[in-house]
């Protein structure tokens, strides 16, 4: 048994080396959110820092604003692209921060600094086909009030939000005759075939260039500003001044039109974001950056190692804790209900909530993902261990007692072997669920098969989604198979016989 454990640990250690990181200063970590523009900006920041001789890593496509913000506060990342509107409306929504000075002051209290605008806004806007707008002479939202007959197709979210259509309509006094809800992705096609004339959009959407859309000026300043900036930790000034100087070369460097082109290159032409960023820096600043594009095989092997690492380590620790807990619950019935209730309760916590909660404690990457997977693995194992032991017939437990075996020997020689099938079934359930849940690890930079799924959803690329989903499904099936073999190995033969009488 001991050699088996050592082998397992050795395998885990090997798997880990594939994703380990070194510690040579100065190094900075750049973060980005799981949408294309953020990933491109993250790549730009990373390449600029590297050009300044700093060892920069890009923790790309993290799971959302809260995760990035917490990671920045915890020092897991040093810099990430953000929007002033998001800062005011979401991150610091409890405070009134109308001016740039007040916003900077509020950030400074938290040890965070903000760059100047990168040069563009990514805000809500209204748009229409360039041809149609030119024909009707419409340049601003105010101009729409003279054309109440134009059909508006608005995304459902925009229609419902108080700071969306209802407020916009009041501010501009619009009285259109036809307003309908449409899916955002279909809205552009609606514009193209003139089923609708006006739609809401994000002002840097890749499709703006593709469909030749005119973005109408918000002349009454209804929409809050969503200026692109990057946030960085104050300590960067002392820790890596050269890097900061390099990063600041982005301030004011990207125009609205350029950002739309960059988005279009990624989303419509499917060019790798790092390549896009490198090309932009070359054209704009004359920088030459190395672009490392991995082959399918190296990507797959890295992700498989990352994924297996998450599953194996979390399962190992879950088994180490859950089996003793199950034994404890079965031996002392007074504790059984509380223990089962607690592990059951853990199961109901949404995974994203656990991940966000873990960042201040454990940072980004594999660790918080492993803790979350570990917590989710407890219930099936504790429950099956408890039930397996609890269901041993009284006559067998008493026979073992009457032989004169002490308590621990009874457990080892009789009760655990009798419950082995149930316990193993619990571990199997946990493992299979783990393989699926581990795809969420990509949200906090733990890699694994979730990474291509996340990117695929972002780029609406089914092939990329399958690149993650298919190996994950295969791994789940393999796991199932491995446990069926393990059953032959671990469950005593006498329990696997069909009853002859």
């Amino acid at each position, binding site marked *: 048994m001991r050699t088996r454990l050592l082998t397992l640990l050795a395998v885990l250690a090997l798997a880990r080396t594939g994703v380990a990181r070194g510690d040579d200063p100065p190094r900075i970590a750049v973060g980005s959110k799981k949408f294309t523009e953020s990933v491109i900006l993250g790549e730009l920041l990373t390449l600029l820092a590297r050009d300044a001789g700093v060892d920069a890593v890009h923790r790309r496509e993290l799971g959302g604003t809260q995760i990035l913000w917490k990671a920045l506060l915890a020092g897991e990342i040093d810099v990430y692209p953000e929007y002033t509107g998001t800062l005011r409306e979401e991150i610091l929504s409890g405070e009134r921060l109308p001016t740039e000075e007040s916003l900077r002051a509020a950030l400074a209290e938290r040890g965070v600094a903000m760059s100047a605008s990168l040069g563009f806004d990514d805000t809500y806007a209204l748009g229409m086909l360039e041809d149609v707008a030119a024909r009707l002479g419409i340049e601003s939202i105010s101009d729409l009030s003279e054309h109440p007959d134009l059909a508006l197709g608005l995304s459902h979210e925009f229609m419902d939000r108080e700071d969306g259509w209802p407020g916009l309509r009041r501010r501009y006094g619009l009285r259109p005759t036809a307003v309908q809800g449409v899916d955002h992705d279909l809205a552009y096609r609606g514009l193209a075939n003139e089923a609708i004339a006006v739609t809401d959009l994000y002002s840097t959407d890749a499709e703006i260039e593709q469909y030749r859309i005119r973005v109408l000026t918000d002349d009454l300043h209804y929409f809050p500003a969503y200026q692109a900036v990057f946030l960085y930790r104050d300590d960067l000034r002392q820790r890596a001044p050269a890097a900061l100087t390099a990063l600041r070369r982005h301030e004011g460097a990207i125009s609205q039109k350029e950002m739309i082109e960059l988005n279009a290159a990624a989303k419509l032409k499917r060019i790798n974001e790092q390549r896009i960023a490198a090309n932009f820096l070359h054209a704009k600043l004359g920088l030459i950056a190395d672009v490392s594009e991995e082959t399918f095989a190296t990507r797959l092997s890295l992700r498989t190692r990352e994924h297996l690492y998450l599953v194996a380590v979390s399962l190992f620790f879950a088994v180490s804790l859950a089996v003793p807990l199950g034994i404890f619950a079965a031996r002392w019935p007074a504790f059984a209900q509380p223990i089962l209730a607690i592990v059951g309760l853990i199961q109901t916590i949404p995974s994203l909530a656990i991940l966000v909660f873990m960042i201040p404690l454990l940072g980004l990457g594999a660790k918080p993902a492993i803790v979350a997977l570990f917590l989710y693995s407890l219930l099936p194992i504790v429950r099956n261990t408890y039930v397996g032991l609890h269901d041993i017939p009284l*006559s*067998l437990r*008493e*026979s*073992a*007692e*009457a*032989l*004169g*075996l*002490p308590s621990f*020997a009874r457990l080892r*020689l*009789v009760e655990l*072997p*009798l419950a*082995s099938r149930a316990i193993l079934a619990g571990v199997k359930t946990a493992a299979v669920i783990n393989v699926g849940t581990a795809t969420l690890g990509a949200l906090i930079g733990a890699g694994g098969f979730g990474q291509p799924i996340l990117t695929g959803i972002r780029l609406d690329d089914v092939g990329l989604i399958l690149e993650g989903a298919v190996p994950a499904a295969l791994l789940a099936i393999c796991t199932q198979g491995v446990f069926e073999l393990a059953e032959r190995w671990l469950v*005593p*033969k*006498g*329990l696997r*016989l*069909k*009853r*002859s*009488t």
Partner: protein
Amino acid sequence: MPASIEFRAVAKFYDRAPALRPTNLTIAAGKTTVLLGPSGCGKSTLLRLLVGLLKADQGQVLFDGRELNEASLLDVRRRTGYVIQDGGLFPHLNARSNASLMARYLGWPPRRVAERIAELADLVRLPNERLDAFPSQLSGGQRQRVSLMRALMLDPEVLLLDEPLGALDPIIRADLQIDLRRVCRSLAKTVVLVTHDLAEARYFGDQIVLLRDGGIVQQDTFEGLLHRPREPFVEQFIQAQRGGLEAPVAEQGR
């Protein structure tokens, strides 16, 4: 040396209802004592108190003159063999491993274990090739034979049999009954057998302890019960099973 067993004012309650009223009982060393009575009379309770599967609410149980308590419990259990109605064999172990579990736990050398198993299989007349079978592959009678081997493995001073033949059909039962008595007699151990069957009690018992409603009615030989009943209940109990007496089960097969 076989050990004697003494119950001193031992009582056991379930939710305040007495399963056993304060009872004094001495079980003679080297003899077979049968605890007899209808179900619910307390006979199994006495046996389970003896191996510490139940704890007495009052009084003391003395095993070979020594009080049964936490400190002496494991030792008493190892000096006692215990067979229950359905055998209580562990389904994950084959017959050999079931019988030898305790000896292996105590670190007997494999050779000694093998010799003892061969000896016991011979004694209980279990065919050698059945030693590798798992409980689910054995017949009911074979299971009881293996269970008896397991009980005798450490050569205990006391053998406790709780309705050991209760779950068997009549022909197998008769067969095993003969072997069981032969074993009891040949080993000259202190044997306590629990049954509700008068014929079985007569067949096995040097002494019979008749119980009713958690108390002892009469402790005597079979002849004593038959000819000197202390209470009308003794006559009633014998009367009710008269039919069985005239043709004892063990003799039917002859």
